[in-house]
Each structure stands twice: as structure tokens, then as C-alpha cells.
């Protein structure tokens, strides 16, 4: 809501400055987004009229324009604007004017041999608009010599008030003035007395019959039309245009402008029909299925059944409270008009507005609540203004329904105790009563307000409970006067609390400490944490899930159309973006929610990572700077991460059912069900889809499938005091054997003998062409009970060699 300072002064008698009023509005809960100062730099620029136009002797496109200003002052300028014509009033910047954004004051310039004394200005040149295509045209009724800021309506301060959805009563200048007056910022001026109220009924044929059909009763409480004959649909006078422009409302002709002006002035939306285009009686009714309606925005809408409309004998005239129709709209030829002032139910207006996707000033107000009780007064004032500005004669009005609200205004209790209970402020009873009375609340029959209650004024639609009245008292009293009290959660509550809870079906409860631990491990390994959108493109999602992903009904774009089934999508997109920026090497991780199996209730929680480019940065000691990351880099990340969450035994036995987006050499972690993680190289088609180049490895942990972190329980252990012996074995195999299989054999021997403390694979060799391979195994033997004797070492070694031979076909190499 734009609040024009001079307009406010027509309603409010106040000594306060603009800054003080702005501050007060904020304190009242009416946030002031901006205070736009008046343009005081345009005083030299003034209105002139073009008297004569001659061709420029040396340029085809330029013309010499002679102008006349106030006191018969005259001069000549060179002008190239296509819209210049004799009789046009425009704005002249005389020599010496300092224009905003110009380095130096304007000088007399010689343009192609002709001296130009000043300049006729375009909106862009004056800094009042973007239009540079022609000079500003000023209405012919603006006196010559009028300074530009007055002619353009820029001589006023405008406050941009951001209204919260509950305060529709302040969506008018009168409403804001009423609010300021109640808060002690001045006195509300009485409205000018109406010379006469309208006559109801008029004389028979002059008045259009109106009716609210039964189906629309309850949705339309009151409907009135006043007929005015013989108007002239000329442009509005300058002061009306200025006021509307300052409020960002476009100017059309006086008929439309007056209805907009009155809506901004008093808060009650109006509509004006061309009476000649209305056929027969006017009814408020519900639309029929597919009834056509061409709205004033130029669009034709086939209506749904059941929308509240205003219609004549033939067709829909207006979507009630939202927008009028083209067929009955006013034009320059309009002679007779019907002025509508009505009351439509918020739900009905909201429904039609939503159905057609139309957002209008009228809808905004009706949807939130319009005071029905002032309908006839608003109608009378609007018609009086129309007759004054457009001529014509009012022929009386016809009405249906009632200006009494269908529900009696509520009576709500509030006294100093209520204010103290919720607001924490101790006030005198008289203070509470004073504030509420000033806001228009009336103490109910009981007399004192308080327990008996307060009757809500007819213009307030946001007061339903005692707490609402507490809020009223607090905001006028001032939120700054609420004392800050020491706050502490009661001891008993703290002791009884469960530190973390997850509500809702399928929502995993994750330990913050656990997730933070994972993040620490990831970051310590050089991975940077990223955050991506939870929604990704359909094709990308399909490439990263089994089945169909969960789609949004109204996505922002195709790239944000479905809920991610995997965090890898965001990471691969980030990888591609970074590669394009020249980051040929990088590492990212992310944790967050995912939606599996395309079901809203299957909210999982993952942590994923991706590395791309060389293993190491180019560096004086780096050995891996030329080698790309490989699957073992991913495996290392994954097992270090898993180790931060739980005790991990072994490092996976190999390949099981891998998700299809990993390449063959990838592996999964954890043989047991459920599988808790995957890692590996993305398939070539996945890289193409995400537009990624070079070496990439990635992995994902399904955190909600991990066992919850538990207190670690230790088996008792005493380090052996006896000497350890390292034995190395080199096994030859006739066909390939997986390291996991070999390690499983060693583990069995360990279980059997209890003498193997450590094992590692120190060498792997595969003959390029043949199937043959060899593996070097290093084993540390140690006993808890005694120093190992040579025979024992021999026995264990023999057992191991025999087991490897039997189960893997390995032969101990000689030497």
C-alpha cells in the first residue's frame, strides 16, 4: 500500500514529520519498506507548449520547435522526438538546468548549425521513467510554467507500507489515518459532509433492477448500482492522476480513475459499467460450466461452474469482486454509467481469483474483508465525485441485500490481566481501555469493557480471540515496553527430555553427533561439503534410481522436476559445473534427505561423495599428479567414513548386485542385508548425461540403513608381552583369485590357531596375457601365552599354506 503524504493529510491532522509517522507505523506493525522522497531537483524544468515546428535546415530528422511558456515567454529548441506536434504541452529544461546523472548543467548547444536553447525532455532524460522514444506529453489543462515535479506528481513523499495479510483495514488512506489517530499521532478529520445521500429507487425506468439470486446469497451480502447519465469520459484532472500514479495505479479516464481513487481512499472496491452495454436486470449469481467471460485484461476465460459473477440478461458482466468484463467496460464514448458498490464474501472472491489466476487490488481487499456497513456511503461519495469530475446526473440507485453484517460483530474479553498473562506487561485498566476504545472497540453492554467484552469494529476482520486484543494493546503501547524476562527450561523438563525425536512415517532419526563425525572425516580427507537442491531433472533422477522417481506437480523448471532419489545427482552436477570453471580436480560431499522408490513417505537420508581429476595436485613431491582417481580412492573414502559411524570388519568381499549407475569394477560395502553403501566409478552414460569428463569416483552411504550408533563394548585385551614373528608368503595361482577369498582363508586359520595378529597383502602380480597370478601375503604371528617356538611357527605356516592350496589353489613359491 502506497501512502501519499499529501493524501494522508486530507484525512489526518498531525504535527508529526514524515520520519516520525514512518517510525510510528513500523511500531504499530505496519512495516514501511521505503520512503520515497519528493523530486526536488526538477524545479527548473517547466511546462511549455509547442507553437510552431519548422524543418531543420541541415538535418532530416531534426526539427526546430518554437515554444511558449508562462508570461508569454518564448524560445526555440532543436528536437528529434517523433511525437512532437504543434499544441503539445511538454517539459522544457532551460539552459543552466542540472539534470540528474549529468556531469554539467545544460548549455546552449549548436546542433548542425542551429542554436538550441534548452531541451524538450523524454521521461528517461528526466530520470522519471525508462521511455526514451519521445518527449513527455503533459495534459493540456496543466498551466504553462508549472514546475515538472508538480506536473508529474513527483512533489509528494510516498511511504511504501508493507501490509500483513490480516490488516486489510489499513489498505486505504482513510484506514491508515484511522490507525495513526488511534495511536495518538493526530486527529482523524471528519469526511466532508455529503450534500445529499442518494435517492433509492429513483424514477422507474431510470434504475436498473438488481437481485442476488438465491444460489449467491451468503456469498453476496449487499449489491447496489447507481445510475449516472450524461457523463463525459474525459481524462481525470491532474490531482487525481497524480494521486493514482503515486500509488502505481494506471490512469484511464475519469470514470475508471474515480473508482480506483475511492478504493484507495476509503478501502471499498467499486466497479463502473457502461450502462448502455448492460441489458436488462443485473443479477449476482453463480457461473455455469464453460460460460464465456472476456475480462478487462483482454483474456477470454471459460468459467468453471459455481463462481460468483455479476450478470445481465445476456451474459456475465464481471467476475464478482475480482475483475470486470470488456463487454460492459467504459470507453471514451461512454455516456451513462452504473456504479457498483457491493459486498462479496472472501471465500467466493478467493475461489474465483484462484480459479482464473487473477490478482487484482479488488480481489486483495474482498478476500481479506471489506466493511459492508459503509457501502451506501461509499456509493454516494463515489457518485458525487463522479458527477463533479465527469458531469452527468445521478438517477438514484437500486440495491439488494443488507448493509448490516450477516454476523453480529463478536464480543471479546480483554483486560489488564489478559494483557499481563500473554503480553508480560503490567498496565492500568484505564490504559487498556483507552487503547482499545481509541482503536474503535466498544465496551459491550457491561460498560467497562474488560470481562464483559469488547465489540469489534465493523472494519476489523482479524480479531477473534482475547489474544488478538492483547496484540492490539501491546502494539499501541509499544513492543519495546515488553520487559525481557529471564527464560530457562525447567530442570524437570531438561531431565525428562529425549534429546532427539523424529516424527512422521518413515522419517529417520539420525544422531547429530554421528553425522557431524562423518562430516569431519570427509572434510579431513579433503572433501568440501556442498548443498544442492532437493529436486533434480527427471532424466537425471531416472539414471540414479530403480523405478520411477517422485515428481512435483508444479516444478519451477524441468531441471527441478523430481525429488532426488540419490545425492549423487547434485554432486555430479556440481562436478560438471566446477569442471567448466576450470576445476579439473576436486572433491565434494553432501548429506541430506532423498526419496526412494518414488514414494513421499520413503524419505531416506544419505551421505555421498565424489572425487574427480588427478589423484594429487601437481606438486614437487607428488607421485599421483598424472594418475586419475580410481575406484580404490572411493573405497578408501567409504571405509574411513563407515569407520566413523561403526566398527567395520573387513572391507567387503566384492561385487554383488550393484546399482546400474556404477561401472563394473565398483563394489558394495557390507555383505549383510541391508546394504549400507555403494561406491565406484560412474558408468560412461552417466558421465555423458551429467556432462562430466575424465576420471571420477563416487560413493553413497545410506545413513538411515546403518545401525544406530551405540555405546562401544570392548572385549578384554592385554597386549602380548611375547615376541612377534613376521612371515612372508608368495603364492602362485594358476587362475585369478580375489584378494577377499585369500583373506577369508587367512581369517579361518586365524580363528583356528589364534596365533595370527596381523595380515596384509604386500604384492599383487598378474601376468598380462595369461590367467596366472601371484599374491604376496605378510602375516605377523604372536602368541598370548608364550614365545613362539620354531616348530609352532612351522606348523602355523604349514596350515596356512595347505589351506590356501586347498581353497584357492595357491602354490607357495620356492625360495
Amino acid at each position, binding site marked *: 500500500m502506497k501512502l501519499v503524504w499529501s493524501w494522508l493529510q486530507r484525512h489526518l491532522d498531525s504535527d508529526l514529520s514524515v520520519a516520525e509517522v514512518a517510525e510510528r507505523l513500523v511500531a504499530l506493525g505496519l512495516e514501511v519498506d521505503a520512503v520515497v522522497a519528493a523530486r526536488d531537483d526538477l524545479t527548473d524544468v517547466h511546462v511549455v507548449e509547442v507553437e510552431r515546428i519548422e524543418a531543420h535546415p541541415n538535418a532530416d530528422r531534426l526539427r526546430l520547435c518554437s515554444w511558449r511558456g508562462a508570461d508569454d515567454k518564448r524560445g526555440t529548441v532543436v528536437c528529434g522526438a517523433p511525437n512532437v506536434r504543434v499544441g503539445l504541452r511538454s517539459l522544457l529544461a532551460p539552459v543552466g538546468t542540472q539534470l540528474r546523472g549529468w556531469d554539467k548543467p545544460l548549455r546552449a548547444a549548436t546542433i548542425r548549425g542551429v542554436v538550441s536553447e534548452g531541451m524538450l525532455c523524454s521521461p528517461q532524460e528526466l530520470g522519471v521513467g525508462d521511455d526514451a522514444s519521445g518527449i513527455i506529453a503533459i495534459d493540456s489543462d496543466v498551466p504553462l510554467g508549472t514546475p515538472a515535479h508538480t506536473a508529474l506528481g513527483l512533489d509528494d513523499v510516498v511511504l511504501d507500507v508493507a501490509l500483513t495479510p490480516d490488516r486489510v483495514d489499513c489498505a486505504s488512506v482513510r484506514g491508515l489515518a484511522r490507525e495513526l489517530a488511534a495511536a495518538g499521532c493526530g486527529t482523524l478529520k471528519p469526511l466532508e459532509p455529503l450534500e445529499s445521500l442518494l435517492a433509492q429507487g429513483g424514477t422507474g425506468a431510470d434504475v436498473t433492477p438488481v437481485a442476488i439470486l438465491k444460489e449467491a446469497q451468503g456469498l453476496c451480502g449487499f449489491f447496489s448500482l447507481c445510475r449516472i447519465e450524461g457523463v463525459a469520459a474525459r481524462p481525470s484532472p491532474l490531482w487525481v492522476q497524480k494521486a493514482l500514479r503515486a500509488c502505481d495505479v494506471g490512469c484511464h479516464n475519469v470514470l475508471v480513475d474515480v473508482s480506483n481513487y475511492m478504493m484507495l481512499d476509503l478501502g471499498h472496491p467499486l466497479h463502473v459499467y457502461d450502462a448502455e452495454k448492460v441489458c436488462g436486470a443485473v443479477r449476482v449469481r453463480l457461473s455455469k460450466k464453460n460460460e464465456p467471460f472476456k475480462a478487462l485484461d483482454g483474456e477470454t476465460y471459460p468459467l468453471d461452474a459455481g463462481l460468483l459473477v455479476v450478470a445481465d440478461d445476456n451474459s456475465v458482466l464481471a467476475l464478482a469482486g475480482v475483475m470486470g468484463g470488456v463487454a460492459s467496460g467504459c470507453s471514451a464514448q461512454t455516456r451513462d454509467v452504473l456504479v457498483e458498490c457491493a459486498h462479496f464474501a472472501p471465500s467466493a472472491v478467493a475461489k474465483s481469483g484462484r480459479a482464473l489466476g487473477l490478482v487484482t487490488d479488488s480481489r486483495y481487499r474482498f478476500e481479506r474483508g471489506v466493511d459492508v456497513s459503509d457501502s451506501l456511503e461509499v456509493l454516494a461519495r463515489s457518485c458525487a465525485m463522479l458527477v463533479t469530475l465527469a458531469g452527468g446526473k445521478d438517477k438514484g440507485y437500486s440495491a439488494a441485500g443488507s448493509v448490516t453484517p450477516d454476523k453480529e460483530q463478536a464480543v471479546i474479553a480483554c483486560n489488564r490481566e489478559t494483557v499481563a498473562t500473554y503480553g*508480560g506487561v503490567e498496565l492500568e485498566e484505564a490504559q487498556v481501555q483507552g487503547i482499545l476504545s481509541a482503536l474503535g472497540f466498544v465496551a459491550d453492554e457491561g460498560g467497562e469493557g474488560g470481562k464483559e467484552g469488547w465489540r469489534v469494529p465493523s472494519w476489523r476482520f482479524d480479531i477473534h480471540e482475547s489474544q488478538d486484543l492483547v496484540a492490539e494493546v501491546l502494539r499501541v503501547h509499544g513492543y519495546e515496553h515488553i520487559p525481557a*524476562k529471564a527464560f530457562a*527450561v525447567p530442570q524437570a523438563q531438561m531431565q525428562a527430555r529425549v534429546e532427539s525425536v523424529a516424527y512422521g512415517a518413515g522419517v529417520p532419526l539420525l544422531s547429530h553427533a554421528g553425522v557431524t563425525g562423518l562430516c569431519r572425516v570427509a572434510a579431513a580427507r579433503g572433501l568440501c561439503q556442498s548443498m544442492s537442491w532437493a529436486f533434480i531433472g527427471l532424466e537425471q533422477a531416472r539414471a540414479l534410481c530403480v523405478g520411477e522417481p517422485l515428481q512435483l506437480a508444479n516444478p519451477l523448471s524441468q531441471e527441478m522436476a523430481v525429488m532426488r532419489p540419490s545425492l549423487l545427482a547434485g554432486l555430479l552436477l556440481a562436478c560438471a559445473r566446477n569442471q567448466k570453471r576450470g576445476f579439473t580436480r576436486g572433491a565434494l560431499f553432501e548429506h541430506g534427505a532423498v526419496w526412494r522408490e518414488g514414494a513421499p513417505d520413503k524419505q531416506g537420508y544419505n551421505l555421498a561423495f565424489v572425487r574427480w581429476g588427478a589423484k594429487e595436485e601437481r606438486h614437487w613431491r607428488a607421485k599421483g599428479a598424472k594418475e586419475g582417481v580410481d575406484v580404490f580412492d572411493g573405497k578408501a573414502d567409504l571405509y574411513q567414513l563407515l569407520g566413523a559411524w561403526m566398527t567395520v570388519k573387513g572391507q567387503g568381499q566384492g561385487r554383488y548386485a550393484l546399482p546400474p549407475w556404477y561401472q563394473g569394477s565398483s563394489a558394495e560395502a557390507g555383505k549383510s542385508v541391508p546394504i549400507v553403501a555403494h561406491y565406484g566409478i560412474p558408468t560412461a552414460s552417466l558421465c555423458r548425461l551429467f556432462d562430466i569428463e575424465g576420471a571420477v569416483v563416487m560413493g553413497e552411504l545410506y545413513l538411515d540403513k546403518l545401525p544406530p550408533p551405540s555405546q562401544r563394548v570392548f572385549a578384554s585385551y592385554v597386549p602380548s608381552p611375547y615376541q612377534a614373528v613376521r612371515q612372508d608368503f608368495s603364492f602362485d595361482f594358476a587362475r585369478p583369485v580375489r584378494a577377499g577369498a585369500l583373506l577369508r582363508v587367512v581369517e579361518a586359520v586365524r580363528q583356528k590357531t589364534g596365533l595370527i595378529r596381523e595380515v596384509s597383502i604386500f604384492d599383487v602380480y598378474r601376468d598380462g596375457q595369461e590367467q596366472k597370478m601371484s599374491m604376496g601375503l605378510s602375516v605377523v604371528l604372536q602368541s598370548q601365552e608364550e614365545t613362539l617356538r620354531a616348530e609352532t611357527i612351522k606348523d602355523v605356516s604349514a596350515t596356512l599354506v595347505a589351506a590356501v592350496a586347498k581353497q584357492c589353489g595357491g602354490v607357495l613359491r620356492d625360495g
Partner: protein
Amino acid sequence: MCGLVCGVVMVAPSLSDKDVRAALQALEQVTDEQEAQAWRVGHLGKKGAVTLALRALSALPLQERKAQGRRLNEARQRLDEAYRARVAALQNKQPSEEADWSLPITDTPMGSFHPIEQVMGEIRAFFLGQGFAFADGPQIEDEEHNFCALNMPEDHPARQMHDTFYVQGGTRLLRTHTSSVQVRAMRARQVKEGGLYMFSAGPVYRRDYDQTHTPMFHQVEGLAVDKALDMGHLKGCLLAFCRSFFGGDVALRFRPSFFPFTEPSAEVDIAFSRTDKEGGLGGVGGEGGLRLGGDEWMEILGCGMVHPKVLQACDIDSSQWRGFAFGMGVERLAMLKYGMRDLRMFFDSDMRWLQHYGFHPFAAVP
């Protein structure tokens, strides 16, 4: 190099004091352990001067043998000690000048925590410390939890403030605020006699994307329900939080506002001023150029007393129980404290930005 005999003074079979001095001088000349070893062999080894002289003692008369023996033993001890000292000195020799210790190390560079992780951690630590319990809820919600129970029935104009993403084929939606978790927590309240103190944090979604809005952002939400809470406690709680979070003597402004789920409602502004220097309100980070305190105000959060209709919708007797609630945008708090300027960069995963604004994983979340 001198070879094995280098520095050996050939005296046999006797050993004068002069010989010992010469030997000690020779020891001073050796420059590494290998030369020292050669010196030891030459003087104290099997064929060394001292050994030979000791061997020659047997040819002497008894009295002289005793005197010479003592003298020789003393000399041997002296030389031995000198040798050990010299070797120790050589072992502890400082590195030569040529080594360049300024070469940069080759460790894996440390990764980083995202600023959102950091700030959520800071906020979480505060409220857990205050005794609030953490509660989580689904990110895909229904209209009941996201709107209706929060006093936003279908026609409520406030729903327009939440431009909502809906899931295809149903009425499920992406939660537009973490307040939905409040509803779930209140409905699930275990101990009916006791109060409820909870907070929640996580991503929320609104269908809005421009310079100052992203379709996904993060919120932290707090709720306290008990029998004797009022706006004053809310003020006290938030003041304590802001002091802790921004780490200074912050000035806050509470001004009336509107939320369908609270009444009275307030928005909270923090006092700040602009500076030429870099830094957010936390006095650290980027190019924000903000400082705590001053005469400008910036909105940081919304709050209020829980609306009685919300309590009723959660089966809590609003004549017995009252509560306060607050909610804040994590990105906004991060930007204010650490001085990032462009909201959209939070979700771009630009390595340069992450390395610049990221946090060290071990200095990070408290």
C-alpha cells in the same frame, strides 16, 4: 679423505702427555662419524697406540708398571670420553645450509564444512544447551500439518505468502516451513502434565527463485509450551540466543507483525551499521561490511505467542497452556554473521566459494 690411519699419532710402545694432546687435537679435526670411527680404531682399537702401550707395560719393572699403568688408563679414559663427546656432537650437528625447508608440504588439503552446516551447528548447540530437545519431521508434508493445524485453512490469504510445491498425484506438498514439526511434536507430546520445549532445523521449500529467494532454504524453529510463559520470556530467550550467536552486546527491536500461527506476533530486527571494512555482524568473514550496533535495523526472525487455535488443533487445552514459538532463516543468519552476499551461491557448490566460506572441520561445529 684421510683413510683409516688419518690422525693417528704413532707412538709405541709408550704414550706421552704430548701424544695424548696430539690425539685429542686430531679428534677435533674429524668432520663425520666415519672419520671419528677411524680415529677410534687408530687410538683405542686393538692396534691402537694406547692398546700397544698398555701391552708394552709387562716389560716394565713392577713399580714403574703400576705408575705407567695408572697413567695410561687415565689417558685411555680421557680419549674414550673425548671420542664419545665428539661422536655425540657430530650426531647432533645442525643440517647443512642447502636444505630448503620452505618448500610447501604435500599433505592432502583439508576439506571444509558448508556454512549452513556450521551455522545450524551453532544454533543447535545453543538450544540443546538451553534444554530444548531436537525434533525432526518429514520434508514432504500434508496440508494438515503444514497449513490447517497452523491456523491456515484453505482460503486463508496467508497461504499465498507460502508459494507451495505440490507432489504429483495427491495433496502432499514440500513443507514451506519447519513449523509443521511443531504440530507433530505437540500432537505426540508424551507427558501431558509437563511442558514442551523443542526446536527443529532443516530444509524448507517455497516456489520462488530470484536474487533474494531460493526454492530451497533452511529454517530453525523453536517452541516452548508451558503454563506461565508470556512475551517477556520470548524476548528473554531470543535476546540470549542473539547474544550468544552474534557474540556481542546486540540490540534487538521487536515490532508487531502477523503470522497465522502466533498471536501476538513479532518480527525481530537487529541493530547494525555499515562499515568500509569487510566482515559480517559476527565480525568475521567476507565482504559484508556490517557491524553490530548502530541505527539501522535488519530483520532476522519471526516469533510470537502460539495461537490458541494451534494449541487446540494439537489437542492442548489453550486455557491451561500457553507457549511461544520462533523461526529463523539459516542462510540469512549465516550471511549476517559471516558476510556472504549472494544467497544463490549457497547452493552452487562452486569449489572456490566452498573453500573461501567453508569452515575447518575440527574448529567448526561446537
